């Protein structure tokens, strides 16, 4: 089971009242390479992978939910005090007419989240390579969002999340090595 903690993984601060940024950030909420897809991908793959990497998939999958909460926090803070007029000016009128300022799992273009974002081949190597690719794609998405954003505090949180993708990719690469070579069975350094 999971136990919630009343705490963000990283303090999220947003300086400017710029709801347009929420439109971009939703890509990492309900998009193909977003945090929800990542969490569900890893936690689902756990059931059909060698025991040696189940712990890693569990822990990275769990951390992704913490990232999802950070993204939700950013979107929440950017939209909670916006009037319909401001949301219209920010280009999120089409979200507003369906959802008001409720969060919804869709991408920046409004495409709803779908299970087909979550690969599960059942082959440990294929799935781990998928995970490595997913982390690199999420890293790239954070770069593109940072390129679109001029909010220094928001970019600080986005840089944290981008760096986490780098670490996750590293660990998945190591997981592949473990499955290839049965590494770390013995002390090898």
């Amino acid at each position: 089971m999971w136990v919630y903690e009343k705490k963000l993984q990283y303090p999220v601060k947003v300086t400017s009242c710029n709801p347009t940024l929420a439109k971009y950030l939703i890509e990492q909420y309900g998009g193909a390479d977003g945090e929800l897809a990542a969490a569900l991908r890893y936690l689902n793959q756990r059931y059909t992978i060698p025991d040696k990497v189940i712990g890693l998939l569990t822990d990275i999958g769990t951390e992704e939910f913490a990232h999802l909460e950070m993204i939700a926090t950013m979107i929440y803070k950017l939209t909670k005090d916006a009037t319909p007029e401001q949301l219209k000016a920010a280009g999120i009128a089409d979200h507003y007419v369906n959802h008001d300022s409720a969060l919804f799992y869709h991408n920046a273009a409004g495409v709803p989240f779908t299970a087909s974002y979550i690969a599960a081949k059942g082959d440990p190597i294929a799935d781990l390579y998928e995970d490595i690719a997913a982390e690199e794609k999420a890293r790239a998405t954070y770069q593109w969002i940072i390129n679109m954003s001029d909010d220094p505090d928001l970019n600080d949180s986005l840089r944290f999340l981008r760096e986490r993708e780098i670490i996750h990719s590293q660990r998945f690469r190591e997981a592949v090595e473990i499955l290839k070579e049965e590494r770390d069975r013995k002390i090898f350094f």
Partner: protein
Amino acid sequence: MSSSNQKSYVPYHSPYDPCPPIGKKYYSTPPNLYMGFQPYNLPQYSPKEALQKGTLWPAFYDYYENPYERRR
């Protein structure tokens, strides 16, 4: 910041392309691509600094900013 973790290339520009050339296109090649299996006992950041950087190990730290902004 220009680091070795950022590479660039110049896309072909045709005389029939409608927009002025962007010049360089940039892409990241972060440290995880070069590390291999992480060795034991790498130097660490302090806990506060690690949180701020997003990693415990300086060897993985890769600061990112908009490379197209810098160009202007």
